């Protein structure tokens, strides 16, 4: 499975007052198994880009290829794309509607035309994957769950479609720290167990650095930076010029560097920063 985006352009309300260029000449490729983190300001075109990847928006010009197949020429069936590409919107818990958790998660598989038995298998597997107890939860109303659980159920609703590419738009937005950690761990586990391409948007640089194999920075509808987390986060100046930042651990490392000559660190996580500081202290003491 792979994604290839070529010269994508998208304009909102063309020819109307309020015409805005949301994407301008965006091109990139994602290899199989990759975790791609996307960062960027509100209005930088991230959400618009994600919606192109499963055919919810038709581009003004340009092409999107999923697994070598062009999905933007209007020839492919939309259900085929959505079977392959699962998109979880921001605050997905707002899309829950069924009477029971089981029915809600089964909505996607049902739309794919699977039989009851297969639906049941998928639902069970998806609820397991998001770390919930199927037997305990299946007959509850999704509306009586806690915020974090609702979100898991909503994500399960997309996972139950067994996508080969999973896209999450700010999966941790508005959650408390412990639910935040749980969701991240869950996303990681889903990626590892399903062996899929994972694309996720976040405003939390530490999450991006920790999770991603590759990082893409969007700014004003263009790809401003792209590379491994180490490559992208070594360009702190450019990031802060775009109103973004580096992970807190890196910020601290940079601060120490400016005060303590000889301190070397390209830490992206707290653990790495601690390791470098320890190393530095041993060096200077010894």
């Amino acid at each position, binding site marked *: 499975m792979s994604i290839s985006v070529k010269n994508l352009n998208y304009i909102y309300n063309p020819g*109307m*007052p309020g015409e805005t260029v949301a994407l301008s000449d965006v091109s990139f490729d994602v290899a199989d198994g990759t975790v791609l983190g996307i960062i960027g300001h509100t209005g930088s075109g991230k959400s618009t880009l994600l*919606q192109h990847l*499963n055919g*919810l928006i038709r581009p003004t010009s340009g092409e999107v290829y999923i697994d070598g197949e062009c999905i933007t020429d209007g020839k492919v069936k*939309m*259900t085929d794309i*959505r*079977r392959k590409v*699962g*998109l*979880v*919107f921001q605050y*997905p818990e*707002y*899309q*829950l*509607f069924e009477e029971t958790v089981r029915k809600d998660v089964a*909505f*996607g598989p049902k*739309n*794919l035309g699977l039989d009851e038995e297969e639906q049941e298998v998928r639902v069970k597997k998806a609820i397991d994957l998001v770390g919930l107890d199927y037997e305990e939860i299946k007959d509850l109303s999704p*509306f009586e769950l806690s915020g974090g659980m609702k979100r898991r159920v909503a994500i399960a*609703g*997309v996972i139950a*479609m067994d996508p080969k590419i999973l896209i999450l738009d700010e999966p941790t937005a508005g959650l408390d720290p412990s639910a935040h950690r749980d969701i991240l761990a869950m996303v990681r586990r889903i990626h590892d167990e399903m062996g899929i391409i994972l694309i996720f948007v976040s405003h939390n640089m530490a999450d991006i650095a920790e999770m991603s194999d590759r990082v893409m920075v969007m700014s004003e509808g263009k790809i401003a930076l792209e590379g491994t987390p180490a490559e992208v986060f070594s360009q702190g100046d450019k990031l802060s010029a775009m109103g973004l930042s580096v992970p807190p651990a890196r910020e601290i490392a940079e601060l120490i560097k400016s005060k303590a000559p000889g301190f070397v660190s390209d830490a992206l996580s707290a653990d790495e920063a601690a390791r470098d500081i320890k190393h530095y202290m041993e060096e200077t003491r010894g």
Partner: protein
Amino acid sequence: MIRDITLGQYYPGDSWVHRLDARTKIIATLLYLIELFIVNNFYGFLIAAVVLFAVIAISKVPLKFIFRGLTAVFLIIAFTFLLNLFMVDGRVLWHWKFLTITYEGLSRAFFMAVRLVLIIIGSSIMTLTTKPIELTDGLEKLLSPFSKIGLPSHEIALMMTIALRFIPTLMEETDKIIKAQQARGADFESGNLFQRAKSLIPILVPLFVSSFRIAQDLALAMEARCYHGGPGRTRMNEIRFERGDAVAAVLMVLFLAVIIASRFISL
């Protein structure tokens, strides 16, 4: 599609029409709607249409923007037209099996359709050139004499402000929910009427839940700012009649006279 509904939207501008007092515009619109029902022949409609397009020209709202609002109600207009076309008795023009078109039916259908189009354009001109807040302020002022007999004019105006304010919000919300369900493979376009109606459930339930959430947040925010309703409330922008409104009033009376006169033009 959902973004095409222009009714209730404001088109920013600084034309003579934009600057008129909201009360003038509300009265003018009401009067215009009444006049459309006074009109009973082709010339009357012609005059009404010419006047409307003159107002549009003065307001500088692009025609494209106005007609986009019509596409959303096209079905209703088409339905009314067909209903009138086949249901009115009179001199037969065309007949096929159970379908009959009469001369009276044709003219009634045509007039009805034109009337509907003018009603929609006429009222959208008002909302397009008046900020929702001004509109409801104007309405409150217009209704305030009735508060003496127990009409809660301030509350009515507030409800309208809130309704208007949240049209775009709820539309955005609907758009988001539709997309989210589409991403889960939902299909809103195929199937018979019953299946399509059923496919709306995944949109309607989350939309209702969202509306209640938004309403609750709004109520809380208002309480937090000690909102207490009508009596004694002052406003940041007082609305007042100016010379333009007097001119508009004179024009309105003239127009009304012409429309009434048009009834007596015989074909």
